[in-house]
């Protein structure tokens, strides 16, 4: 389950977990590098494993760190949206 986190002035950061982290490394350039990137971009497909990540979150009065894979075993709906206090 999500762990409660200490809140400081620095903005907490999350990001990819596991193999996808390779994507963060600078490209070495050339054909090979581009092909690698294309393969990694193709990670999100129906029938394929959901890429794991950690992210800071607000949940019922607490600031916590959420890791997607901790929810495997249940059905998950993951929603992205443009911004808080927007209209839709």
């Amino acid at each position: 389950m999500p762990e409660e986190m200490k809140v400081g002035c620095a903005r907490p950061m999350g990001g990819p977990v596991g193999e996808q982290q390779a994507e963060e490394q600078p490209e070495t350039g050339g054909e090979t590098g581009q092909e690698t990137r294309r393969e990694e971009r193709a990670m999100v497909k129906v029938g394929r494993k959901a890429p794991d990540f950690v992210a800071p979150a607000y949940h019922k009065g607490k600031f916590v760190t959420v890791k997607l894979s901790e929810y495997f075993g249940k059905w998950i709906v993951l929603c992205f949206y443009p911004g808080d206090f927007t209209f839709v």
Partner: protein
Amino acid sequence: MSVDSVFVHKMWNDVELSKMVSGGIPFAMLSDAAGRVGSLYDVYDIDAGVETRGRFIIDPDGIIQGYEVLTPPVGRNVMESLRQIQAFQLVRQSKGTEATPSGWKPGKPTLKPGPDLVGRVWEHWKTSMAFD
């Protein structure tokens, strides 16, 4: 999940959303400050600096069963997301022996794919069933 900080999530929940949903938002509101997770899921709009309206259904094995991505001005249909989850759950429970045709919702007949069904779907499924 949006690019807003957890502090803004708290304020949005406390100031506005808790007036729409009694007791506030029951699920975790995730923060993706630099759009790194959104980029991973291919829903981050790098020009606008925000996530587009992506919705992913992930099964208990961690497999993405479906997704939908909308541009910001059009909202999602929650009932359609629930219907899709119910359909995926039925298929999973049947261990793939049943499939849900177009227009399926709970209580409506499923299809049982196999040699006997080839060329005979018309006997089990009518076009009107896509719309009722």
